[in-house]
């Protein structure tokens, strides 16, 4: 198992989406206590916001200083602070790929967890309830968000293997996945031959890589989600979002649960309705997404 949740506020925010996603994810805690995380698309930052895993057991402060020293050569560092298990930086202006390379060159276990103008990912080892203590997620206003609580089946339990996964290389694109991608090894070999770096041994990571490549080739998120239904193999319900689009895809055999509710003001998606009840006022209509179904909500005008 694993639990995934998503919440999209149709007004474009800022809305109390952090609180909604946290409540939904906490309601799904029983689907996996190993690690938990939340991705939120908040107001546009004055620069690039980067969340960094400083490495297991490393001297966080020393790593922070070294990262700031290197990043300062690329752009002015407006903010750099440790928060919970992660470092948070706001860099005035920088090319995303260069920025990630500079940060990850500090040490092999340093990893950029998220990057974007709106996207921020927070994650940790352990059940969802401690996300609030570490990151004060419920205070975050956003237009949409994703959450994940993990029951690990194949790969190790650590911060790096926790979800949501940022799609490395594409700012503001992130995913959460419940299920098992059975053509993971084949796709990974193929992508690695083409120079893609994989950060984990978690099969879900390949979804982000897959979508990133589709988007870079010019596809919309909706097109990429639709293609993935036949090009990814296995059992999956996954959610993906960019700054201005939010969607889901479900495998053609309908092997993993995904319940969707849309109201006048919001869209809430989760494995179980128990999470929808925690995120939406009563009166919504819940329905299970069909085999091979794709859903997409976007806002062409972007956030206001």
């Amino acid at each position, binding site marked *: 198992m694993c639990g995934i949740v998503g919440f999209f506020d149709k007004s474009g925010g800022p809305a109390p989406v952090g609180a909604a996603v946290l409540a939904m994810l906490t309601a799904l805690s029983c689907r996996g206590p190993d690690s938990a995380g939340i991705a939120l698309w908040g107001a546009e930052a004055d620069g690039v916001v980067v969340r960094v895993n400083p490495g297991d057991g490393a001297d966080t402060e020393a790593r922070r200083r070294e990262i700031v020293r290197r990043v300062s050569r690329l752009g002015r560092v407006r903010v750099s602070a440790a928060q919970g298990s992660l470092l948070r930086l706001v860099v005035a202006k920088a090319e995303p790929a260069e920025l990630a390379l500079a940060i990850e060159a500090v040490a092999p276990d340093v990893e950029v967890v998220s990057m974007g103008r709106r996207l921020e990912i927070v994650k940790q080892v352990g059940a969802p309830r401690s996300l609030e203590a570490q990151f004060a997620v419920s205070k975050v206003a956003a237009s949409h968000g994703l959450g994940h609580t993990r029951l690990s089946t194949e790969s190790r339990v650590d911060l790096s293997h926790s979800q949501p996964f940022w799609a490395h290389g594409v700012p503001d694109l992130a995913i959460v996945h419940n299920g098992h991608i059975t053509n993971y090894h084949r796709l990974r070999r193929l992508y690695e031959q083409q120079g893609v770096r994989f950060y984990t041994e978690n099969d879900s990571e390949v979804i982000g890589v897959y979508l990133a490549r589709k988007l870079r080739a010019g596809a919309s998120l909706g097109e990429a989600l639709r293609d993935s239904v036949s090009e990814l193999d296995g059992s999956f319900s996954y959610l993906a979002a960019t700054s201005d689009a939010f969607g889901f895809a479900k495998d053609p055999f*309908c092997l993993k649960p995904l*319940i969707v509710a849309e109201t006048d003001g919001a869209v809430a998606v989760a494995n179980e309705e128990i999470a929808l009840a925690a995120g939406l006022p009563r009166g919504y209509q819940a329905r*299970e997404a069909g085999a091979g179904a794709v859903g997409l909500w976007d806002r062409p005008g972007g956030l206001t």
Partner: protein
Amino acid sequence: MKIVDCTSRSVREINEAIRRLVDGGEPEILVRNPGARHNLAVAILKDVAITIDGSAGYYAGGMSDGVRLTIQGSTGWGVAECMLSGTVVVDGNAGNGAAASIRGGTVVIRGEAAARAGIAMKGGLLVIGGDTGYMTGFMMQRGRIIVCGNAGPALADSMYEGIVFVGGEIAELGNDAVVSEASPEERAEIGATLARYGLKGPDSFRKVVSGRKLWNYDKKELDVWKAAF
């Protein structure tokens, strides 16, 4: 009518409270604030009216024998799973595997049913007021399914016996599923069943049954088997 409030209670405590009332001979029970939690009102073995005042999670009313359960919301996976007799009515939509493996009784989904509704049914009746998803009636062995709306792909795949009636469009038939028209007697029976639950279906229904080609292995029909697997 006695009330069981789910707030601040574990599922075990909720079900114990329901069962105490059932054992005490209470004829009517209202379950309040269900919050879409799993395994509500399972294994009720008496003729008793239970109403769940909202949505339920997985396996609501499962393993029951005689219960008359109304769910005033949606349900997750496996509503009424393995029921022997009784009635389970869902006012909203149902998740995957509604009425899985039931041996008897009636399950009514007023809204839509998701994938594999009526999987491995061994008797009983499943009525779906709206559309139904992928692989409805998969490996069904006995009983009836009435779908008022459209049916998704792989309808009645690999069924042994039983009948699926579909009022709307069939996206795709499953392996070894065969279509004919419902007879006037069958249509009258469907109409009476729908009327009993205040549902309205179309005038005509198609009848889907097993072609029985998968009953026995025949080397000459290897292609049929390959497709089924």
